[in-house]
C-alpha cells in the first residue's frame, strides 16, 4: 500500500518539477546571468554591469520604463472604474434571466485574439477609418482626424484588452455579496455612495486585488496594443526589449531590460498584495 502511494506521488511530481525547473526557473536564471555579460573592447565576453549602467545613463530608457509603469497603473485604474459598474449591473441589477446572457456577451469578445480586437480599433479610428467616414458625412469635422497613435487611444486600447480580467473577478466577488447586506445598510439610512464605499468595495477587495494584479501585469507586458495603437511614439518598454533582441541583436542588453521589467512587475505586485493584505495563492484562487 505504502509503495503504491509513493509511486503515484513521483508520477505526479516528476512532470511538474520538469516543467517548473526547465521552463521557468532555469530560463530566468539564465536571463539574470546573461544580463551581466557583455563584450569588452577586445570583443570578448566578460562579466559586466554595463547593461544596467546603460539603462541609467540613457534617459530614453528609464523614461520609457517609468512611463510604461505609470501608464500601466493608469490603465489598471481606468479598468477598475469601468468594470465596477458593469459587474455591479450584471450581478445586482440585471434581471436574472438576462443576466446569464449578458455575462456570455461580456466574455465573448475576449475569446477572440487580441490582434483581431486591436485591428478592429485600427480600422475604426484611423484617418481613413470608419469613424472618420461618419464624422465627415455628418459634417461634424471638415478634415479627417487621426485618432490613432496617441496616448489616450493607446490607454483605451489597453483598457479594452484587459477589461475581462477585471470584470470576471469582480463579478464573482459581487455574487458572493449577500443582497441583505445592502438592504441592511439601506435600512440603516445609508446613501448609495456610502453603501458603495463601506459595503461593496470592502467586500470585493479580494476580487479587486486579483483583477488589478492581472490587468497591471498584462498592460505592463503588452506589446501588440502599444505597438499598433500607440504607433512610433508609444515608447512602451516591451518595445525596447524587442528592439534590443530583434533589431540590434544585443541580447545581453535585452536580457538586462527584461530582468528590470520582471523586477518592476514583481515589486508592484508585491506592494499591491501587501497593501491589500492578501497572498498570491488567495488571489489566484
Amino acid at each position, binding site marked *: 500500500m505504502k509503495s503504491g502511494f509513493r509511486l503515484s506521488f513521483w508520477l505526479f511530481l516528476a512532470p511538474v518539477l520538469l516543467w517548473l525547473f526547465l521552463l521557468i526557473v532555469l530560463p530566468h536564471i539564465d536571463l539574470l546571468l546573461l544580463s551581466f555579460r557583455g563584450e569588452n573592447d577586445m570583443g570578448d565576453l566578460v562579466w559586466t554591469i554595463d547593461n544596467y549602467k546603460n539603462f541609467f545613463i540613457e534617459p530614453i530608457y528609464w523614461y520609457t520604463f517609468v512611463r510604461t509603469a505609470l501608464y500601466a497603473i493608469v490603465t489598471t485604474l481606468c479598468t477598475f472604474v469601468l468594470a465596477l459598474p458593469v459587474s455591479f449591473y450584471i450581478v445586482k441589477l440585471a434581471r436574472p434571466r438576462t443576466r446569464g446572457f449578458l455575462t456570455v456577451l461580456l466574455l465573448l469578445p475576449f475569446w477572440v485574439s487580441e490582434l483581431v480586437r486591436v485591428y478592429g480599433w485600427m480600422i475604426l479610428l484611423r484617418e481613413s477609418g470608419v469613424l472618420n467616414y461618419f464624422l465627415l458625412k455628418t459634417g461634424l469635422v471638415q478634415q479627417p482626424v487621426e485618432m490613432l497613435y496617441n496616448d489616450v487611444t493607446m490607454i483605451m486600447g489597453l483598457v479594452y484588452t484587459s477589461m475581462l480580467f477585471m470584470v470576471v473577478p469582480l463579478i464573482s466577488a459581487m455574487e458572493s455579496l449577500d443582497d441583505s447586506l445592502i438592504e*441592511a445598510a439601506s435600512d440603516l439610512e445609508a446613501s448609495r455612495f456610502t453603501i458603495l464605499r463601506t459595503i461593496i468595495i470592502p467586500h470585493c477587495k479580494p476580487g479587486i486585488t486579483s483583477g488589478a494584479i492581472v490587468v497591471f501585469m498584462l498592460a505592463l507586458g503588452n506589446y501588440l496594443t502599444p505597438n499598433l495603437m500607440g504607433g512610433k511614439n508609444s515608447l512602451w518598454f516591451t518595445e525596447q526589449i524587442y528592439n534590443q533582441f530583434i533589431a540590434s541583436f544585443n541580447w545581453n542588453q535585452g536580457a538586462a531590460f527584461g530582468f528590470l521589467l520582471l523586477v518592476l512587475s514583481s515589486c508592484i505586485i508585491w506592494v499591491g498584495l501587501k497593501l491589500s493584505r492578501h497572498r498570491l495563492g488567495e488571489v489566484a484562487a
Partner: protein
Amino acid sequence: MANDLSVGNLIRSFGDFTAVDNVSFDVPQGSFFSILGPSGCGKTTLLRMIAGFDEPSSGTITIRDQDMRGVPPNKRPVNLVFQHLALFPMMNVADNIAFGLKRRGMKSTEIVRRIEAILERVDLPGYGKKQIRQLSGGQKQRVAIARCLVMEPSVLLLDEPLGALDLKLREQMKVELKKLQAKVGTTFIYITHDQSEALVMSDHIAVMNEGRFEQVGSPRELYSEPQTPFVARFVGDNNVWSGEVVESGERLTVRTGEELLFTTRSHKSYAKGSRVDLFLRPEALRIEPTDTNDLNTFEVDVKTILFDGANSRLLTVMPGGHELLVSLPQNRQFDHIRPGDRILLGWHPDAGLCFKV
C-alpha cells in the same frame, strides 16, 4: 393605547399569483406581534412591504399615523433584523452598530456613548472591538438587534432570525428575546414558521396561510379557540377524526369512521348529517380515567411510547387503524404501560372542536 403599525386591505400580487391577499391588522404600541405561517404563505412578502423593500399592489401601511406610501426603506421609522442577520463582516461590532448613527451625522462622542449603552442593554458590554466572526450565534443575534435598536425605530421587524441557530440556543434565545423586548419596550414584529417561537414570545399572533390571515389573537386564544381548521392543525398538535353529525344542538353528537359516538361542543351549529372534522389535543385525552361520567370513552392499543421528558406521548391505535397521540404525564402514574397494552381513554366534550369539511 395607540397603534404603532396599521395595515389596511393590503394586497400584493405577482402576475396571477397573490402573495398577500387583503390583509388588515393593527399592532399596539410596545407589543410583541408575531406573524406565523408555513413557508410560502406570504409572510416574508408582507414584512418586506412594511420595511419598504417591496411596494404593495394596493392597500395602506401606516406607521405612527404616517402613511408610508412612496417612503423608501431608509426613510421609514422601522428597522429590519434579517434572516441571516446581514451583519457587515468587514466591520467590527462597534462599527456595525455605529453604521446607521453615522449616516445620521451624529457626533462621534455621542455615537460611542450610545454604542456602549446599547451593548450594555443586550448584555454584551465591552464587545465593541470584536470582529463579527469571533461571535457565537447568539451573540451575533444580539448585535444584529442592537444595530437596529440603536436607531430607535418605532417598529422593529424580525425575519426568522432564530432559524439559523441550533435547537438548544434557539430555546434560550426565545426567552432572551422576550425579555429584551419587555426591557426596551419597542414594538417587535416577528416573522416565523415555528409555532413554538411564536407562542412563547408573542403578545399577539397572526396565523397566515396562502396570503390571508386565518386568525389574530393571543397565544392562548389560538391554542384553545382556533377559529379555522388550518389554525387547529398548524398551532400545536391535534388528533383528527372525520365524521358525521348525528345530533345537533348545544352539543353535537358526531359519529366517527369507527362507528364511535362522541359528544362535543361546537362554536357553530351544524345541520344533522353534515360532514365534520373533529379536533382533539393530545393532552385532552385522559388515560384510564377513574370517573368516566360525562366523558367520551373508548379503548385503544398502545403502539409505542414516544418518550420526550415532560412532553412524552403514547402513540396509540384504534381498532379501525386510526392513530392517536396521547399525552403521557411523567408523574410515574403510567409507568406500567407497555407497547401492546389495551387501555381506556376518555375526554371531556368541552375539549373537542368541530369544523365543517
